[in-house]
């Protein structure tokens, strides 16, 4: 129910054992290995493995691109036998072949695509010449040059033709015209060709490049189309080949994970201090796991293990452990920061508050049931692990709380029962309906908020007392504990007696604050002034409490959006069409509203925890505990050696 206490360990052993030991340590998966601060050994260079891993991942991406698999939201990792994974150590040629061929095939596909694009542009550029039914190389006679080329469309080609006709040296025939350019053929006496071309060029003529062009335009285009067809055929052939490699996906994935494990091992070995004969690995292990490590080391003759408690002021890696109700809320704590090891794990205390506020902010029994059932289904069906599992359970609890508050406030898909029964039957709120009496809920929210804040201050007092600073706890927290409720009594007390209690309580506690809050100042005047100034803290507490009004606002917004949805849905009345519309609108609206309300509730409840609650006592900056263990991305490894051992 708190921060797990850690032991330090150091293992020393003979060098020949180091690989085997690291293997075992990884399987144990319970210890964190210290990183060496000195320069790392380069004996166990993981670089080669890393580039291999990058290649394998790239190959998987190729597979993903062509062999689209539906990705399940919570995919279960396929099981792979440990032995088949370590087979890769001896023989990875097969899988490497798959990877290489996938990568080269993809490169070929890229080549083909650009080849096709090139052919298409050539076909496009020859298209205007298609009416020219002479082969390009056969243009011209003994005395006449025939030059195909283009004029920009703004040249008035008819005028030009007239002009040339008068000079009698040459003439132009238009082949086609696409609005951008005139495609023409120029006939010219060979003796004058040069000067004719010069004149025409000045007018915007550009001759077609005849290099690589042989045959009639039609035949060239035909052959280009044939080439393109072949390329496209090849494309689908290569694609087919890639698809044929798809069944090897699992093998490549297993190989990726094998490489990942290998890289982790190399890094662990790099972190070991080495001599020619011996090695030392040091790190952290949770107290309760220490026995397992001892057990492991006893198996080796040539390995010594030392376990000891950390020094008092030593920074230990932080691992949180909570009961099954509070556990999912660890993600909220971890998102803020790991607590420092001189602080406490606030998760267990925060969890009930989180539960309450989340539910109040969504507060619809129907939505609560839907959310709960959905998350329970996901848990049952997909059996997610680790963080995902925590997150799903977190939403599951949120759903339960939403249901409870929804029932209390009478929200069942907003006012759907009332709408469907056309105003005859509504489900009554067990407690009260916030839309009718928002002020009541506002006060409830403030009360919960005050309890929340006081709990936070209580934790601070506890921490101070634990440190032995009892006076600090009494004066810094105790005074406020008296002052704040006294002020409430003074301002809102209903009888003179209550007002009096409030008055004297406030005077005494305020005096205590004025007298004690400046105790760090040497100068007596300054001491008094900072004492007086500390009373200004009242505004801080006031704004903290007011911040809980968001609970009301978000709760109302869920309810009102739901009734907007129901109103829109019932616009068409209660005939057949109207009921179909109602169902459609309510289904889509409900999904939308649950999503937006749950997101809002998550964000704003987190804010209340972080800003209003944690700020009272929490000290973050702890380094999370990262055990050295088997980390896989795609597959789950079945370990057979354990069975053999026992």
């Amino acid at each position, binding site marked *: 129910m708190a921060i797990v206490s850690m032991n330090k360990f150091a293992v020393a052993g003979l060098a020949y054992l180091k690989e085997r030991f690291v293997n075992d340590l990884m399987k144990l998966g319970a210890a964190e290995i210290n990183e060496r601060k000195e320069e790392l050994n380069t004996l166990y260079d993981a670089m080669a493995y890393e580039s291999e891993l990058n290649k394998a991942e790239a190959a998987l991406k190729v597979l993903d691109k062509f062999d689209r698999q539906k990705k399940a939201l919570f995919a279960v990792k396929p099981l792979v036998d440990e032995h088949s994974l370590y087979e890769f150590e001896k023989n990875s040629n097969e899988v490497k072949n798959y990877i290489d061929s996938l990568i080269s095939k993809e490169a070929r596909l890229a080549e083909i695509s650009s080849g096709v694009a090139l052919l298409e542009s050539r076909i496009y550029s020859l298209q205007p010449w298609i009416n020219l039914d002479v082969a390009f190389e056969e243009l011209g006679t003994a005395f006449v040059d025939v030059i195909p080329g283009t004029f920009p469309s703004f040249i008035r080609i008819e005028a030009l033709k007239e002009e040339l006709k008068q000079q009698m040296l040459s003439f132009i025939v238009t082949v086609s015209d696409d609005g951008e350019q005139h495609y023409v053929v120029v006939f010219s006496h060979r003796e004058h060709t040069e000067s004719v071309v010069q004149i025409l060029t000045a007018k915007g003529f550009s001759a077609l490049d005849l290099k690589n062009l042989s045959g009639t335009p039609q035949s060239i285009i035909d052959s280009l189309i044939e080439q393109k067809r072949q390329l496209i055929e090849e494309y689908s052939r290569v694609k087919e080949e890639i698809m044929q490699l798809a069944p090897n996906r699992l093998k490549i994935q297993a190989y990726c994970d094998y490489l990942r494990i290998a890289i982790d091992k190399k890094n662990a070995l790099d972190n070991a201090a080495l001599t020619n004969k011996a090695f030392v690995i040091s790190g952290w292990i949770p107290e309760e796991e220490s026995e397992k490590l001892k057990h492991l080391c006893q198996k080796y003759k040539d390995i010594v293990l030392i376990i000891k408690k950390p020094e008092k002021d030593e920074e230990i890696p932080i691992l949180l452990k909570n009961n099954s109700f509070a556990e999912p809320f660890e993600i909220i704590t971890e998102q803020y920061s790991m607590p420092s090891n001189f602080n406490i794990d606030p998760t267990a205390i925060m969890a009930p508050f989180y539960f309450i506020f989340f539910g109040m902010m969504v507060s619809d029994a129907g939505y609560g049931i839907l959310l709960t059932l959905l998350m329970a289904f996901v848990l049952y069906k997909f059996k997610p692990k680790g963080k995902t599992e925590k997150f799903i359970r977190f939403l599951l609890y949120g759903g339960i709380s939403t249901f409870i508050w929804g029932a209390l406030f009478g929200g069942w898909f907003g006012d759907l029962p009332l709408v469907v029964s056309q105003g005859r039957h509504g489900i009554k709120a067990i407690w009260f309906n916030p839309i009718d009496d928002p002020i009541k809920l506002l006060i409830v929210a403030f009360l919960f908020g005050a309890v929340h804040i006081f709990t936070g201050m209580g934790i601070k007092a506890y921490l101070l007392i634990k440190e032995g600073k009892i006076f600090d706890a009494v004066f810094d927290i105790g005074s406020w504990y008296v002052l704040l409720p006294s002020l409430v009594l003074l301002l809102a007390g209903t009888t003179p007696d209550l007002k009096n209690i409030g008055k004297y309580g406030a005077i005494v506690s305020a005096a205590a604050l004025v007298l004690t809050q400046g105790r760090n100042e040497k100068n007596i005047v300054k001491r008094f002034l900072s004492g007086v100034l500390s009373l200004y803290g009242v505004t801080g507490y006031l704004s903290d409490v007011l911040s809980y009004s968001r609970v009301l606002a978000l709760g109302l917004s869920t309810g009102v959006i739901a009734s907007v949805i129901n109103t829109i849905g019932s616009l068409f009345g209660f005939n057949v069409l109207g009921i179909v519309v109602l169902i459609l609108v309510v289904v889509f609206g409900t999904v939308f509203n649950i999503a937006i309300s749950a997101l809002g509730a998550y964000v704003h409840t987190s804010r209340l925890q*972080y800003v209003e609650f944690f700020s009272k006592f929490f000290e973050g900056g702890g380094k999370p505990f990262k055990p050295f263990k088997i980390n896989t991305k795609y597959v789950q490894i079945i370990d057979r050696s354990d069975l053999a051992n026992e």
Partner: protein
Amino acid sequence: MNNWIDVLFNGNVLAVAGAALAVLMAGIGSARGVGIVGEASAGVVSEDPSKFGKVLLLQALPGTQGIYGLLIAFVIMTRIGIVGGAGVQPLTTQQGLLYLASALPIAIVGYFSAVFQGRAAAAGVGIVAKKPEELSKGMIIAALVETYAVLALLASFLMVSGIK
């Protein structure tokens, strides 16, 4: 000649104007805010499409102000009987002005907080680009801006429900 002035200061016209204002201002603000985040998000997604889900969460954040505006408009319309079975109730000019005034908090604060939340969330998209696991911090940063829209919503709601 005085006809249009009478219409202008008709209580129902003022109340509907208030409802319209709430939807308009808060909605425009949200549209701008969501747009700002969307631009930043598209950049990140072009580099790494798998981050789409994460940036989408951030992009949704400045969208709530528009919803709050609609919400107040809806409450006003229900109260004056445009929506729901009760039928339109004639309002005095004073009542109409009260409805108009009570729409102002969510209209104005909604507009500005949506735009500024959009900027904060767009900066949060930068967090997702570099450290996707820190998404929730980006969300909290943006959510702090929303506090004031929530407060304005609350104020508007209490005002509307207080009008006799």
